[in-house]
């Protein structure tokens, strides 16, 4: 029998829908919904988590991430400039730093700062200092590569035009190249902020006082405290989403209306997607 293309498309959709419904029905029949509710959504028994999960947990997570990202951005910018510097020693140092901290698990840095720093140097860092320093150290390695890619994605003609007008190299860098690079890397930087938000949970290996607890710590303690199965973790997870989902919506928005870089090819805008978003990590 001969099926037209349209028939075939309909048939394919019908089969997919059929499989979906079958699986759904099976799940509804097999799963013990009472048990699921008791272990994951037992909100009555965890009401004690509120409002601390927000006022302490969410607030601390935001603080650790904010400072980690801020200093990571500063360090990352410096490292990116070192990576493209004409003095080779700067390039080597930056490359080694970036490869090292991208190559090791972030949790090692948390342990190093949380325990190692006090043992080795007698430094007594607060939880905020430990968490944001660790995030800044790891984050700056990733951010440096993003920013370097952004600097190199600015068309060469921009620097040439600035220099031809008589701008000194540093002035052209500050006024022309860096502002354009930041526009290009805003979406990938937002992704970096999301990753750091999640990595802030690693501070749990160091341990912390109740007032310094972030979301993961509060979720873990809640499991022991409330006997509500995994519900405290679900609550903590939802709090992470409160941070990360708006950030990724923001990133997508910015990606949609990234600056029209039309000075390279007249008329045709955004023929390809930014080279930065692809392949940075």
């Amino acid at each position, binding site marked *: 029998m001969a099926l037209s293309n349209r028939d075939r498309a309909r048939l394919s959709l019908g089969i997919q829908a059929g499989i979906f419904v079958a699986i759904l029905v099976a799940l509804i029949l097999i799963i013990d919904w009472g048990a699921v509710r008791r272990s994951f959504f037992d909100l009555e028994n965890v009401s004690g988590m509120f409002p601390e999960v927000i006022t302490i947990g969410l607030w601390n997570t935001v603080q650790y991430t904010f400072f980690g990202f801020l200093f990571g951005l500063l360090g990352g910018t410096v490292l990116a400039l070192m990576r493209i510097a004409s003095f080779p020693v700067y390039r080597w140092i930056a490359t080694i730093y970036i490869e090292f901290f991208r190559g090791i698990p972030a949790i090692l840095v948390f342990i190093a700062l949380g325990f190692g720093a006090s043992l080795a140097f007698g430094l007594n860092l607060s939880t905020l200092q430990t968490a944001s320093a660790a995030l800044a150290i790891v984050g700056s390695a990733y951010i440096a590569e993003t920013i370097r890619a952004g600097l190199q994605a600015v*068309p060469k*003609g*921009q620097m*040439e*035009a*600035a*220099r*031809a*007008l*008589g*701008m*000194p190299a540093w*002035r052209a860098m500050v*006024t*022309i190249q860096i*502002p*354009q690079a930041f*526009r290009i890397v805003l979406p990938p930087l937002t992704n970096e902020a999301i990753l750091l938000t999640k990595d802030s949970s690693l501070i749990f290996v160091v341990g912390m006082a109740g007032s310094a607890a972030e979301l993961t710590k509060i979720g873990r303690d809640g499991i022991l405290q409330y006997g509500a199965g995994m519900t405290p973790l679900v609550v903590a997870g939802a709090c992470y989403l409160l941070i990360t989902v708006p950030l990724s919506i923001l990133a997508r928005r910015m990606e949609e209306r990234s*600056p*029209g*870089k*039309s*000075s*390279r*090819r*007249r*008329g045709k*805008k955004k023929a390809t997607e930014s080279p930065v978003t692809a392949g940075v990590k």
Partner: protein
Amino acid sequence: MSTEVTAPAGVVIEDLHKSYGDNEVLKGISVTVNPGEVVCLIGASGSGKSTLLRCVNRLEDPNSGRITVGEFEATDPDVNLDAMRRQIGMVFQQFNLFPHLSVLENCTITPRRVLKQPKADAERGAMHQLELVGLDHLADRRPAQLSGGQQQRVAIARALTMKPSLMLFDEPTSALDPETVGDVLGIMRNLATAGMTMIVVTHEMGFAREVADRVVFMDQGVVVEEGPADEVIGSPSQPRTQDFLRRVLNPLGE
């Protein structure tokens, strides 16, 4: 409405050599451009004309030879490059406007940041130049909102806000839609009439013939022929020039 040109500079290029690795792009070029003169560089792609132009403001570093621009010795390793470049306006094939700045800011950023002009002065100067290219009504737009021809006119205005004594044009109309070429060439002609020293790399033979005082034909890194525009384009004496012009003026052959 016309441009005022204060002190046009002359350019002397002597025995200029430039290589990329083993590839010698300029093989001993000597060209003199008198103050106020318009010289068009013509020749096939890869003949070295753009490289020669870019050596004049040292966007490229020549391997040997000498270039002087007005009082500056461009090839002196200790020359104050930034000060020299402020005297030399350059217009690029791809315009190279700053996309993150408005049209007006494109024209004020260098006077303000480099010449330290007060904002109001820089804006007055920029608006004047934009008027001369007929685009003062678009001062608040972003470059991306302009047509190619408009962008190139802004690029010319931007260069002129620095009050240069020499203008370099690197194929200024090659990336333009055909219907906007005339506007850009018209502005360049006004500038020539106003007495600006200009070196223009171009494929627009009509413009070269009408506006240029002299035409220099280059091929494979050497100057093959140079002279008054009518002579070089109208009755070239060298076979290579004849061949090139025949192909440019009559692309389909006969």
